[in-house]
């Protein structure tokens, strides 16, 4: 019951959303206490991204309310407390003339104020955020020249630079290689453990994230499950069947299996190379 006593970072109440006549989200109730690391999972088209957009005020729900740190999102103005890494972050124009430093600076623009440019303190913060994601060697590189994984890290730095207390990541590992994904999750876990940042990680990759998160929410139009990781593991079979159907459930098992194999594969490759 300790969970309940923590103040809420997110409070979603009876939220429904429809595009034209198609219901995407139905009657979502979700409370996320501060300090949690929530994995939001669900198949493609389950409404995960839509829920995140409602959460951030990018979309207005047909019904229900969203509160961020106790304030209705429509009136919310402490945007520096929120860091967001969008699913589409990687789909920017790759010819865009901006350096890593400039992109990460954008995370502070809401904070700096009109007519002001970044002062020395701000610039120091930007450098720190870039170092935090291990991109300090690329600080003056053009963003379009980096690999997908590197770009993703830059976008995380952009979200982190304003010292948010809530970090929302929508499918951040799409198009990122397996090794970077592991490093990336480890980094998120560290942020959660050491800085107490509330994290929401949207993904369809259940196997990889479940090692790192504290809580899991399963979404497929409705919220099928929301609880801590252990009760999720206990009810996993049931949840998966409810969400994905039986066949995909099997695939999920295979995936777990693959995961173990994967390490062997890696070893094999290494042996081949040497």
């Amino acid at each position, binding site marked *: 019951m300790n969970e309940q006593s923590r103040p809420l970072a997110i409070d979603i109440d009876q939220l429904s959303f429809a595009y034209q006549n198609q219901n995407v989200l139905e009657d979502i109730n979700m409370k996320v206490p501060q300090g949690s690391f929530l994995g939001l999972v669900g198949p493609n088209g389950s409404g995960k991204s839509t829920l995140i957009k409602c959460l951030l005020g990018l979309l207005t729900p047909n019904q229900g309310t969203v509160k961020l740190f106790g304030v209705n999102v429509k009136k919310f103005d402490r945007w520096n407390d929120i860091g967001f890494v*969008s699913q589409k*972050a990687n789909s920017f124009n790759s010819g865009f003339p901006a350096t890593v430093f*400039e992109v990460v600076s954008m995370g502070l*623009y809401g904070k700096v104020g009109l007519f002001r*440019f970044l002062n020395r303190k701000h610039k120091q913060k930007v450098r720190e955020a870039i170092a935090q994601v291990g991109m300090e060697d690329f600080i003056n590189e053009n963003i379009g020249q980096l690999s997908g994984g590197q770009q993703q890290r830059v976008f995380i730095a952009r979200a982190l630079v304003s010292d948010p207390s809530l970090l929302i990541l929508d499918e951040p590992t799409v198009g990122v290689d397996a090794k970077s994904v592991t490093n990336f999750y480890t980094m998120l876990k560290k942020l959660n453990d050491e800085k107490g940042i509330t994290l929401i990680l949207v993904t369809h990759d259940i196997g990889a994230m479940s090692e790192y998160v504290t809580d899991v929410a399963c979404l497929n139009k409705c919220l099928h499950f929301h609880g801590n990781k252990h009760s999720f593991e206990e009810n996993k079979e049931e949840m998966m069947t409810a969400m994905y159907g039986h066949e995909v459930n099997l695939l999920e098992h295979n995936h777990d299996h693959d995961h173990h194999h994967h390490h062997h594969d890696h070893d094999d490759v290494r042996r081949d190379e040497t």
Partner: protein
Amino acid sequence: MELLQQLTFLERGVLAGLIIGFICPVVGAFLLVRRMTIISEGLSHITLSGIAAGVLMSQTTALLAFINPLYTGLIFSLVGSLLVEKLRQIYKHFQELAIPIILSSGIGLSALLISMSTSSYSEWYNYMFGSIVTVNLNDLLFIFMTGIIAMLLLAAFYKELLSISFDQEFAFTSGISVKKMNFLFSVLIALVISMSMKVVGILLVGAMVTLPVAASMQFAKSFRQVVFLGILFGEAAMIGGIFFSYFFNIATGGMIVVTGLLLLIIALLINKIKKIMNSYRLISSRKEIVK
């Protein structure tokens, strides 16, 4: 005495040119990254309608004789700019439709209004291709005013505009009002187009917005560099263009654009040579390793 007057004419023109050469590339840099450089073409034609309307009003109504057509041009440009934004929302999936609609409406309206006015061919020629010697004190004042407003807006919202141009969703979640900024940007483009008309002319405004940043893109890694180099190229095109046109007695607007074009070609060539040199260096360094 006559010489002095001639000189002040030129000085006025040069001053106006310097202001335009500074601001056009800055706005052009934002247009470039938003993939909207073509908007300058649409707006310049609707601005011509505004000028034609102004000329017509001052000719037909005695009470309105004081009107400087630049102001009516600015109003049309503002309305056109906002309409483009509106049309882009209406044709969400075919946003490129907005500019041809505004552009063709602008030409149509202009043709109508020009045919109704009694102005000479040469006056319209000046508006279309720019003429530095026709910049009078009133025009210079107009360019000063719009220039100061544009610079203030740019200084105030540089960060916000850059963030929105790069990633609208993120900009929103960092507390930037996307709607307000888009409106503001529309105003900014309208200001820049209408202030440049007198010097470079309606048909050539687009060049001042695009050529300098196209050249600076050849060297810039950061957005800041695009802006700074763009200003450099812009001013160089301005000064060079005015100088040559005065020297050879050729149309100023055209000469400014041609100078800008030359600078772009030089920039492209330098970049090409740099690339060849780099690959040559790479090959020779490989050879050394082999040795």
